[in-house]
C-alpha cells in the first residue's frame, strides 16, 4: 500500500501516527485514572463514571459562557479555571453520592454496579432536563485551536499536546498522593485490610469518601479536557465508559502502573491497527486481543497481592 508514496511522505506520516497513538494513550489514561482509583482502590464498579466526566464538561461549558458574557478579555485563560471548577463540582457530587448511596453497598460489590448504573441514568436525565437534550458547543480560546506546524507535512494538534501535558500532570499528582502522602498510605492500608486499618485508628469511612471524591473529581477534569476533542451532551459520557472499563480491567485493578501499561498497549495496538485497516475492524481485533489475554491472565497485566 505504500508504493505510491515518497519516503518523505511516509516518514512524516509515521511521526504523526506516533503522535496519534500517544494522544490516544493520554486520553485513555486520563479517562481511566478516576475509575482506576475508585474501582481499583475501593472495589466499587462505578457505571456512572462517564456522567461524572460529563458534569465536568458542562461545568466547562458554563464557565466559558460566563467568561464570554462578563470577562471577554480573560477568555484565553478560562480553561484552567474551568478544570479546577470541574474537579470541585464532580468531586463534591462524588462525595455526596458516596455518602447517600455507595457506603451502604461496600459489602455488596455487584450491587454497586446496578446502583451506579441507575445513578448514571438519573444523571443523564437530569442533564437533559437542565441543559436540554441537544449537545452544547464549548467554545475554546483561539490559542487552543489548530496545530503546531513542525514541518510542511508534520502538524501536531495543540489540543493533543495539551491533553498529554495534563495527563502527565495528573498522573504524577495522583501517584504522589497515593504513594507518598500520609493520606495515600491510609488509603492503601484500607484497601489491603479494612478491619485492621480501622483498628489502628484510621477513619475508614472518611478515607472512603475522599477516595471516591478524588476519583470522581479526576473524572470531572477528564471530562473538562475532552470538550476539546469530543462532544458534550447528556449521553456523551456513555461514549467513554466501555473503553474506560477496558483499560482498568485489562491493567489489573488496584494498580496505577497497570492502568498506564494497559492504556499504552491498547492505544498503540488500536492506533497501529487503525492505520492498516478500517476503524471498526481495528476495534474488533483490539478487543479480541484483550479478551484473549484476560482469559490467560484473569487478574490483568499487573496485580496487587492483597491479603483476603
Amino acid at each position: 500500500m505504500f508504493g505510491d508514496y515518497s519516503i518523505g511522505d511516509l516518514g512524516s506520516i509515521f511521526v504523526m501516527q506516533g503522535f496519534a497513538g500517544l494522544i490516544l494513550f493520554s486520553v485513555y489514561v486520563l479517562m481511566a485514572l478516576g475509575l482506576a482509583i475508585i474501582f481499583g482502590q475501593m472495589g466499587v464498579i462505578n457505571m456512572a463514571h462517564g456522567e461524572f466526566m460529563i458534569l465536568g464538561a458542562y461545568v466547562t461549558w458554563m464557565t466559558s459562557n460566563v467568561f464570554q458574557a462578563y470577562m471577554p478579555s480573560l477568555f484565553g485563560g478560562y480553561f484552567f479555571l474551568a478544570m479546577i471548577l470541574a474537579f470541585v463540582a464532580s468531586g463534591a457530587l462524588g462525595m455526596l453520592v458516596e455518602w447517600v448511596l455507595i457506603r451502604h453497598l461496600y459489602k455488596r460489590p455487584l450491587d454497586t454496579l446496578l446502583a451506579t448504573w441507575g445513578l448514571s441514568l438519573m444523571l443523564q436525565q437530569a442533564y437533559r432536563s437542565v441543559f436540554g437534550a441537544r449537545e452544547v458547543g464549548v467554545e475554546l480560546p483561539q490559542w487552543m485551536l489548530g496545530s503546531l506546524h513542525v514541518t510542511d507535512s508534520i502538524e501536531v494538534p495543540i489540543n493533543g499536546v495539551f491533553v498529554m501535558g495534563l495527563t502527565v500532570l495528573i498522573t504524577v499528582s495522583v501517584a504522589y498522593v497515593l504513594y507518598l502522602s500520609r493520606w495515600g498510605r491510609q488509603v492503601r492500608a484500607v484497601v489491603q485490610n479494612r478491619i485492621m486499618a480501622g483498628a489502628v485508628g484510621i477513619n475508614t469511612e472518611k478515607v472512603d469518601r475522599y477516595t471516591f471524591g478524588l476519583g470522581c473529581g479526576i473524572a470531572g477534569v477528564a471530562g473538562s479536557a475532552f470538550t476539546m476533542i469530543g462532544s458534550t451532551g447528556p449521553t456523551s459520557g456513555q461514549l467513554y465508559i466501555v473503553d474506560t472499563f477496558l483499560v482498568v480491567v485489562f491493567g489489573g485493578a488496584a494498580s496505577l502502573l497497570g492502568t498506564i501499561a494497559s492504556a499504552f498497549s491498547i492505544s498503540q495496538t488500536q492506533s497501529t491497527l487503525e492505520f492498516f485497516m478500517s476503524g471498526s475492524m481495528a476495534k474488533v481485533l483490539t478487543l479480541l486481543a484483550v479478551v484473549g489475554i484476560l482469559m490467560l491472565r484473569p487478574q490483568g497485566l499487573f496485580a496487587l497481592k492483597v491479603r483476603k
Partner: protein
Amino acid sequence: MSDEANKGLLSPLRRKLLMGMAAVPVVTMLPRASFAQAPATSAVNTTGLAVTDTEVTVGILHSATGTMAISETGSIEAEKLAIEQINAAGGVLGRKIKFIQEDGASDWPTFAEKAKKLLVNDKVAAIMGCWTSASRKAVLPVVEQYNGMLYYPTFYEGLEQSKNVIYTGQEATQQILAGLNWIAKEKGAKTFFFIGSDYIWPRTSNKIARKHVENVLKGKVVGEEYYALGSTQFNSVINKIKLTKPDVIFTDVVGGSNVAFYKQLKAAGIDLAKQPLLTISVTEDEIDGIGGENIAGAYACMKYFQSLDNPNNKAFVPAFKKMWGEKTVIGDVTQAAYLGPWLWKLTVEKAGSFDVDKIAAASPGVEFKGAPEGYVRIHENHHLWSKTRVGRAKLDGQFELIYETADLVEPDPFPKGYQ
C-alpha cells in the same frame, strides 16, 4: 357507578345541547364557514378512529429521552408547531387536531410498543414519528398490522416502501447523487475518501456513492472507513486522509462521533476552506454541538437549510423561534418533520376522509406549496419529490446555499445499478 351509567345515557343529548348553546354566539358573531361545513363524523371515519365532531387525534412518537433525544427534539417541536398552525387555520375537515405524545426513549422495542398503544388503544388517525431507521423498522410491522399511517421525517438509506408510511425525508439517491455531481463538476474532484459511522445508513449511502463515483463520475474512491458508533478518536484516519490527499472527503459520521471528528480534523491542521469536505450527516442541529469554528467551510448536502431565502421559509423560521425560543436552530430533518402534519391534512382533505386506506390511496400527487423548503409533492412510492441542495457551513453555524438542483429530484428508494 350508577352516575357513570346515567352520564353515558344522557351524554349525546347533553352534548348536542351544549353544542347548540355554544354555536349560537359563534354563529352570530363570527359567521365562519368551517364548522357549518364540517362533514358528519360517520362519513369521514368508517374505521373507528379517534375522530369526533370537533376533534381528531394523532400521535407523536419520538425519543424525548435517551441518546436520540438530541436529534428527535427538533422533530417533536416542528410537529407541534405544524399542528398548532393547522388548528389556527381551522383544523382538518373542520376538526381540531389533538395529539398524544409518546416517548420511544431511544429504545426500538419501546417504539413498537408505543406505536401499538397509539393505534390500538388511542385509535390515532396518524402517527408522526420515528427518527432512526432502527426505530422505523421496529414500528413498520405494527403500522402495517393495525393499518396505521406513519409520517417519517428522516433522510434514510431507502430500500423500503410501504402503503402505511409516508417518507417526508430524502432517500439516499436523492440526497447523495446531485451533491456528488456538483462537487465533481465544481471542484473537478476525481478522488474521494469515504468515512462513516458503522451501521446501515452510512454503509448503504456509501455503497450508492461509490457506485456513482466509479461508474458515473469515473472517479476513484481512495479510502472507505467505518468507525463504531460513539467513537471519539479519529487521529489515525485523519493521517490516512493526509497520506492519500483525496480531492473530496465524503462523510456520514453521526452523533457524538461527529463532534469529535470535526474538532480533531481542525486540530490536525486540515483547513476545510482548502480541503473540500462533503457531508450528508451534518445539519444546523449538529453544528450546535460541533461549533461553527470547527466546521466552517464544509459542504453539506441536504434539501433544506434554515437560511433558505423563500417566502415560506421566511414565515416558518420566525414562527418556529417564537414557539421554541430565539436560540433554537432548524435542521433538515426538523423541516421534514414539519411537513408531516401538513401533508396528512392535505391528504385527508383530498380524500375527504380520515380512513387510512383512503389516505394511502390519495397520497400520491398531494402537493404542499407552503413547505419551508419550497414545494414538495408525494410520489407514487410514498416518498417526496424534492430538490437537492448544497450549502457551505459558516462560522455562525448557518449554511450558505451554494447550489440547488433546477428541478425536483424523483425519489427512487430501490435504485437500479446502485445495489
